[in-house]
């Protein structure tokens, strides 16, 4: 636990010494705000909630989270620091979790910086703040899911661009597995149970309830399991890559 904390703190500090962090935060805030106001017509809707704010998060994360996660391992491998890190007295799992948590906290900071929209909605009307809190937590969990996928993929390559593209594609598959096009593709030949199982893997479906303030333990467990499984695979990939 202590090692996870030390590695995580170092990693988080590293984010803020690079311009990428600030660029990411600015773009995330600009896009999140822009989509809410111009595409979601938040003001014109005249409703005191943040539905149209959260509805775009999955799509924002699809492209922005791989940008946060791509460097996690690809950079270590490219610069050779992985050898320095992995010959310190720590386990691979501690390194994987520490680095992931740092990136996840970073994503959380970006998410928290959207607070002006929460202030606005409270100023303009009387929203249900419980719903908004649940949606924020749900959004952060979903970011963790995308991030864990990005982190695993990042360990596969030394090239951050490749890591980005692979993470976006993998994220897209998880995001869209509940959408009609993907479902129709499977329904044509697969048994209904399998089709349902695929739909259950969808980030959209699982985020849907949370974003509307419905706390379903299954949704939370879903994202927790995605993170857990992805980080387990991540650890295995790092072990394999460092020995080959």
């Amino acid at each position: 636990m202590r090692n996870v904390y030390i590695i995580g703190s170092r990693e988080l500090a590293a984010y803020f010494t690079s311009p990428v962090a600030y660029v990411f935060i600015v773009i995330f805030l600009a896009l999140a705000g822009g989509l809410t106001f111009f595409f979601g017509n938040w003001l014109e809707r005249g409703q005191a909630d943040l539905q149209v704010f959260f509805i775009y998060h999955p799509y924002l994360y699809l492209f922005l989270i791989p940008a946060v996660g791509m460097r996690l391992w690809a950079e270590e491998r490219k610069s050779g620091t992985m050898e320095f890190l992995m010959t310190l007295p720590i386990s691979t799992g501690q390194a994987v979790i520490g680095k992931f948590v740092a990136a996840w906290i970073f994503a959380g900071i970006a998410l928290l910086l959207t607070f002006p929209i929460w202030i606005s909605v409270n100023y303009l009307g009387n929203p249900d703040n419980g719903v908004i809190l649940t949606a924020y937590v749900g959004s952060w969990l979903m970011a963790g899911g995308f991030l864990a996928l990005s982190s695993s993929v990042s360990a596969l390559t030394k090239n951050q661009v490749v890591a980005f593209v692979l993470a976006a594609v993998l994220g897209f598959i998880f995001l869209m597995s509940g959408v009609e096009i993907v479902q129709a593709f499977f329904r044509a030949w697969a048994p209904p149970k399998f089709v349902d199982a695929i739909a259950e893997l969808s980030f959209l479906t699982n985020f849907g309830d949370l974003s509307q303030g419905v706390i379903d333990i299954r949704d939370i467990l879903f994202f927790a399991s995605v993170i857990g499984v992805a980080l387990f695979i991540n650890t295995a990939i790092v072990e394999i890559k460092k020995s080959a």
Partner: protein
Amino acid sequence: MLLEINSLTKRFGPITAVDNVSFSVERGEVLGFLGPNGAGKSTTMKMATGYLSPTAGNVKVCGYDVRSHPIEVKRRIGYLPEGAPLYGEMTPFSLLNFVSDIRKLSREERKHGMEHAIESLHLQRVLHQPIETLSKGYKRRVGLAQAIIHEPDVLVLDEPTDGLDPNQKHEVRELLERMASSKAIIISTHILEEVDAVCSRAIIISQGKLVADQKPSELEMRSLYHNAVGIRVSYENLEQCIRVMNQINGVRSVEHISQSSQLNHLIVFPISGADILTKVSSALDENKLKVAEIYLEKGRLEDVFRDLTLNEKGAELENVSNSNVAKEVAGHA
């Protein structure tokens, strides 16, 4: 025995990078690890420090097996990886603190370790500059500092003096000498004079195989030049000198190395490394031959190195060409 390596082998697909290498290092020893590029030096070091897992064989550090107790092993090793990779955005100060945290140093250990590392590697001036902005020499020294900060029992340094200027090289060698008595140290290097200067033992590895494990002085004895006598003589006396030398009992050959308008350089090779210096000098006296300089060759490591690391390759090339010839002959028939 602080470090024990037993029949260590590493294969990458069809390539055998390290082939059945065994050696051990005791406290107080500085082991020079020599070999051409790609011979398997770094791969061996990576396995010893628990980064790569071996295909076969084992590594024991302070009695702990690197595969079953990787954390215990890593705790006792200080390691400078090849090229000294470090987090560029960190400063030497924050990096040393990070390493002290991970290595769970107590307050005193940290204070003492940091002071010692910073002082002996002269890092005061760059302590708060991002590592990526430092020169190659400073980066290497930061890499060394993080390797020694916890006073490890075993120090594994992959090309520690690469990129340092002669003064810095000298300082690093002095540092190694100071630390040698309390640790087992392995350094890999291309610089053969370094082996002479700091190592108590040298290992030569070629194509993944161990080809020599001896004291530097013993290695020098394997050189053709061992106990050869060098003579610088004027042009007028050259002919006579060569004649006289060839008559000495125990001289194998006399080689005329170089020639300038004033002085000629001769090397007199003994038969099987025997000591011929006294014979040579008395022969010169008897014949009243005046020479400008006479000296004894200890032997040339470079020579031994080339001999040990090129021989096998040469043999292999020969085999290949022979088999090609055989094929050609078969084709013609």
